[in-house]
């Protein structure tokens, strides 16, 4: 443990080491002379053929030199043509050029009076202008001014919100997050129209400059949790963030845990609901998976559909799902333990039938289980990687090989096939992909323990698992909440789901500032 702990400290120490000097870039002034600016930028954007430089002249005398820069393919050319270039080149001519007077106010006039776009800002730092250009904005330089106008013209090839692939529901909205940060914030904002709902943006990655939006409701979320989120986000020093999985792995508490401590979801309704409970959502540009912190184990087993159905059904479904989770964790391990060490705990008829079905199988139960589990893992991996039309074939081939041929060839027993199938089906009911994967690893560990020490080994594994879980915290919130805290109030929304009208308070373990979420109802 000591050595292991040291190793861990080293890694996490590296992660959270602030300031290695790469985020603070010095301010670069914009030259007053537009030709100089042009030259400088052409130099910077040398060999970047996707950058458009458009030089043009403005005014009746065509004496004012302008320079417009944007990225081909990222910027909205229609917008630039119709509302920037047209305004400047055509409409501006209609104004009488009272030379000197206008010239000194030219910048403001252009910014406030000519450009017919919603989003624009003024920048006097060349680096920030470049950032803007690369984030699909359009920069407008004017001769004689040491500042530039950055016009919001973001429009890049984007997917429209579609039904999420990973978390399907029957009842509930079918819109899902996409790769564009702005669409994603809009999807959540559409659900929470509260000025207290904040969308705070920052850029991470000194090369990729990925936009990250932190979403929370100011007067609900606990300040500590929010502070932790910002601290950890700010401490990420990396060249590029490609997907929200990067961020997740940088901000999680325990990198050695098999369990995900950050919930990721493709569903805007889930994010909105979690934010209303007092959690924090983190959207990373270019990723349809939005992170929600702090995560809890039971939260990973909840689906947003649980809240849309009536409570009796929801509770039943939840019970099924949690039973399935336990099955997927324990079933193979129990099979190994019982058949190899403690066959006495099952009825003797059944024990005999198991023994009978295993007749002719040359392997011990453990090897048998490992063969089956591994081939299942292979199938799963192959199914994910293969293109859809071939993917179906894998199912059929795998089904026949596993189900029929392996049994006829006496490599595995029929009971084992049943066990592995139930395990696989059970594991598919876990809504969170990260948890699903984590459980698979734990399952293998438990199987090994069962092979070595039987039921006692399984129990040891479970105790070890519990020790780990009890100590796991996500952003200061116990991972096992609400169970280890034993708050009767929070229990209403855990394994069971009470009627929505009984959720008068927000979960206690999140320690929200605004605890109450519902007015107390009058008795009818």
């Amino acid at each position, binding site marked *: 443990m000591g050595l292991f702990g040291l190793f861990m400290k080293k890694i996490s120490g590296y992660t959270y080491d602030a300031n290695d000097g790469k985020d603070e870039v010095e301010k670069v002034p914009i030259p007053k002379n537009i030709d100089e600016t042009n030259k400088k930028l052409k130099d910077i954007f040398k060999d970047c053929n996707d950058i458009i430089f458009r030089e043009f002249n403005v005014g009746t005398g065509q004496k004012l030199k302008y320079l417009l820069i944007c990225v081909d393919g990222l910027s909205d050319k229609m917008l630039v043509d119709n509302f920037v270039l047209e305004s400047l080149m055509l409409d501006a001519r209609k104004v009488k050029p009272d030379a000197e007077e206008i010239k000194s106010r030219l910048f403001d006039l252009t910014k406030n009076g000519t450009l017919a776009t919603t989003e624009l800002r003024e920048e006097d730092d060349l680096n920030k202008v470049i950032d803007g250009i690369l984030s699909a904005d359009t920069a407008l330089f004017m001769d004689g001014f040491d500042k530039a106008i950055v016009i919001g013209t973001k429009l890049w090839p984007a997917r429209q919100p579609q039904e999420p692939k990973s978390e399907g529901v029957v009842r509930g909205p079918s819109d899902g997050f996409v790769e564009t940060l702005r669409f994603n914030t809009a999807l959540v904002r559409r659900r929470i129209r509260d000025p207290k709902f904040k969308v705070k943006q920052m850029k991470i990655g000194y090369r990729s400059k990925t936009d990250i939006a932190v979403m929370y409701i100011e007067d609900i979320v606990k300040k500590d949790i929010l502070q932790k989120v910002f601290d950890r986000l700010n401490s990420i020093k990396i060249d590029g963030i490609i997907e929200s999985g990067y961020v997740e792995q940088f901000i999680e508490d325990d990198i050695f845990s098999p369990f995900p401590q950050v919930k990721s979801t493709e569903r805007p309704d889930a994010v909105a609901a979690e934010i209303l409970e007092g959690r924090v959502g983190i959207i990373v540009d270019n990723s349809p998976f939005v992170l929600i912190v702090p995560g809890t184990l039971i939260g990973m087993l909840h689906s947003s559909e649980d809240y849309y159905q009536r409570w009796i059904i929801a509770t039943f479904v939840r019970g099924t799902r949690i039973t399935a989770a336990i099955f997927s964790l324990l079933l193979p391990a129990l099979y190994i333990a019982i058949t190899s*060490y403690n066959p006495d705990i099952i009825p003797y008829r*059944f024990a005999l039938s198991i023994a009978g079905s295993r007749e002719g199988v040359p392997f011990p139960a453990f090897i048998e289980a490992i063969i089956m589990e591994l081939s299942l893992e292979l199938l799963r991996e192959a199914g994910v990687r293969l293109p859809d039309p071939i993917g179906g074939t894998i199912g059929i081939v795998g089904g026949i090989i596993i189900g029929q041929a392996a049994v006829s060839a006496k490599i595995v027993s029929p009971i084992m096939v049943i066990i592995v199938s139930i395990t696989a089906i059970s594991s598919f009911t876990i809504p969170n992909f990260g948890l699903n994967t984590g459980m698979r690893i734990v399952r293998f560990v438990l199987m090994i323990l069962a092979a070595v020490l039987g039921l006692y080994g399984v129990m040891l594994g479970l*105790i070890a698992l519990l020790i780990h879980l*009890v100590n796991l915290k996500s952003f200061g919130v116990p991972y096992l909440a609400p169970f280890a805290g034993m708050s009767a109030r929070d229990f209403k929304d855990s394994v069971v789901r009470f009627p929505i009208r009984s959720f008068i308070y927000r979960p206690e373990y999140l320690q929200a500032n605004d605890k109450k979420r519902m007015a107390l109802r009058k008795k009818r």
Partner: protein
Amino acid sequence: MIENDKITNTQLWIFIVLTVIGVGIFALPRIVVESADEDGWISVILGGIASIFLFLIMCRLVRKFPDDTIVEISRKVFGNILSVPVILIFTLYMVTIIGITLRIFGEVVKMTLLLRTPVEVIMITMLVLVIWLTRYGIEPIVRFDEFVFPLIMVTLFFVLFFSIPRTDFSNMLPVFGSSAARILDGAYKATYSYAGFELILLIAPQVKDKGKMFKSGIIAFIVIILTYISVVILAIGKFGIIDTKKLIWPTLTMIRSIEVPGSFIERLEGIVMSQWIILAFTTIVPISYAISYILSRIFKHKNFKHFTSISIPIIYLISLIPDNIVEAYDFLDKITKYLETPVILIIPVLLLTTAVLRKMGANK
């Protein structure tokens, strides 16, 4: 890590219940029946009531010194030199009792779940987990207890409920058939099953509301006494006193004889024993924590974690002293006689009276 966190009162009583109920429950019916025959259950009640009184004394004591453990208290009350034997006895008691508990645990697991595995393997694997949780400190231990408590209570209720069929309660008669001396002897011998609550002398500084400490203790003792009485009564009812005396672990035999009508599980033993491993774990971990904590206090070292790894080999060696189960129980008798009595009775009483006479500590 999370060392400075406080224990709430709910957590405290759960902690006491799970610490006290553990390995002792298996032999309890035999031990009390050996002394008091049919009146064994009265011994259990008397032992429980005596334990409550002892717990009250300890609560009084620690409330006088709210920020101190037994080590500092005895140093303050008895002075540096006289406190040495007190602390020594306390430590020795902890170390021996955990060693023997571990041994009995290993033997029970070997007998019920892993017939051909050496008992050493069982004990070492258990110790590894014990070190792991102990190093995290008291608060995670308590949270662990809190999580497993409902599961264990459900199983316990299940076991007791399904033990009722085919029990002949006339085996309990005659009531008060044994002499008072024998009943008291049974009560005295039952104290091993009640041992564990003396940890309050160590963890009291971490309890949030010290005023309600005794109340938590009462709740804990009610749960414990009810469990023990039911176990003893059911064992006597099922086997009669003659067979109960012959069985090493009557409770275990009782679990084995349970038949749940129409259920898939043939014998509950495997399932129940698996749960009981957790129960034993929650008994061993607090004592292990107590040992490392007391050692860190003795050497005035801030971090108790360093002492966990040191104490583990000693515990292991002690657990290997008895050659077999019978010797283990003889050894346990000696611990009860020479170490437990001073620790839970003489030392607290002496400390409290001296403290009161010397007018030390806070008055409420």
